[in-house]
């Protein structure tokens, strides 16, 4: 369960990004965070993986308050979270295998275990035959699959994706979304920030709409109706 209570964020330059955000995301949920550019989608995700600290309010992940963590605790928290970004954030000088293995090396796992888990996961994303390639030798969709494999290698409880299909054409976007759906079915909570209406319609899920740093709607797919108030969603 992820819980955000009265979260506000004002950047150092005085620019407000989020206002009074209250959210509850149960474990195993699939949630879209949507809104136009500058609405606060990425800021909300950054708060969840502790890249930024909220100016006010509290964030609970499981039973842990992650609002003010020490650097080492932030590192340990991030080992339970998978990240996927629009620009893939892969190390272009390392091979596909090395990129996917990196989170396990960080955790100090034995070489054999790393090899077996990386191979399994590359099979899962269909890239086992390209493990010695460098990211720039792959297509955009393949690079994003490598990024997903790297995110999933730690068996995360939560997967955060910031515009993961932003750089892909619609066919590849669908392929990636199907992969997220599969990951969610296996029990991982997925939070996906996107402004792609087509994807939201094609893969309907709970959708939180942000505007100017406020939650303006929080809708569930079954009824496709806006919840009457934010409090009800909480």
């Amino acid at each position, binding site marked *: 369960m992820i819980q955000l209570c009265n979260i506000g964020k004002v950047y150092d330059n005085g620019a407000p990004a989020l206002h009074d955000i209250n959210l509850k995301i149960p474990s195993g949920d699939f949630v879209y965070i949507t809104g136009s550019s500058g609405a606060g989608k990425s800021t909300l995700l950054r708060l969840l993986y502790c890249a930024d600290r909220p100016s006010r309010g509290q964030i609970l992940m499981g039973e842990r308050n992650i609002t003010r963590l020490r*650097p080492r605790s932030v590192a340990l928290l991030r080992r339970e979270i998978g990240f996927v970004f629009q620009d893939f954030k892969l190390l272009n000088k390392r091979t596909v295998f090395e990129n996917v293995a990196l989170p396990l090396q*960080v955790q100090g796992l*034995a070489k054999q275990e790393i090899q077996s888990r990386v191979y399994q996961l590359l099979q899962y994303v269909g890239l086992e035959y390209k493990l010695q390639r460098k990211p720039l030798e792959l297509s955009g969709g393949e690079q994003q699959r490598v990024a997903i494999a790297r995110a999933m290698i730690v068996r995360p409880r939560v997967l955060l994706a910031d515009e993961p299909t932003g750089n892909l054409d619609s066919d590849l976007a669908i392929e990636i979304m199907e992969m997220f759906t599969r990951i969610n079915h296996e029990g991982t909570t997925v939070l996906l920030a996107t402004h792609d209406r087509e994807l939201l319609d094609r893969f309907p899920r709970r959708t939180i709409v942000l505007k100017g740093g406020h939650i303006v709607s929080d809708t569930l797919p079954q009824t496709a109706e806006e919840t009457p108030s934010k409090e009800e969603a909480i």
Partner: protein
Amino acid sequence: MERLRYFLQRTLLSMRQTPLLSGATIGTVAIALMLLSFFTLIVFNVQNLTRQWSRDIQVIVYLDRIPSNSVLEQWCQEITKLPAVETVHYVSQAEAFERFRKRLGQNDDLLDGLMPEILPASLEIALREEARTQRGAEELVELLSRNSTFSDFRYGQEWLERYDAFMFLLRLTGTLAGGFLIFATLFIISNTIKLTIYARRDELEILSLIGATPFFIKAPFLAEGAFQGAIGALLALGGCHVLYYFFLKKGLAALLTTAAAQNISFLPTWMQVAVLGLGLTLGLAGSMLPLRKFVRM
């Protein structure tokens, strides 16, 4: 163990993957430390040379009357106890006469028919290294003057004045130039390493996102900085040795007397180890400063 192997692998691999940047860092460290080492080498040799000159600094007390052996022994003991004094040597009239004869060389026949008693006996007082200054000599003379038997002192006042002025200039130049060189070296190295880290900031960001602790992120970079600093320092010592051989050993030998040229030596082992340590430390410190800026959780 896995982590240690990972750190070592990453350090070597990253240097192989960015040969240009690694080369630039090593080259910068090498050139900066070579200049610093060569400058130190020059100061070190000049100091050695002046230390040899300073051995000639002594206070001579000419004796009007020849003291008895027991009195002489007592004086020697008392004078040796003074903090500024290294040794005391009694020069008898016969020894002084013999020295004079030797100094005259082929003209020693000038002394024929003369008795040794024409020259006074003396006490030659050698000073400790820290007292080999005009002030040190003057202070000793003042102490010795308390003994009314001693009245005639010689200690090369003019020479000491020049020696003091030279040593002051040497120290001032050494401190200013050495300080400037160390500061410039740290500045250059830190900026070069900052560039290499800036070029790899994506890697730092990704490592931090996938749950690497600050230590795990920094360690390979610090090891790389230290390694590059150490290699740079070794190259600097090699380069300094080449400069020493061609400019100091061979070049100066042609200008100086053979004896002076023979005294020119390379940096002693402890200084070479210090240069290596300095390279290592500069590499470490140079990496640490920019890492503090780029690695923020």
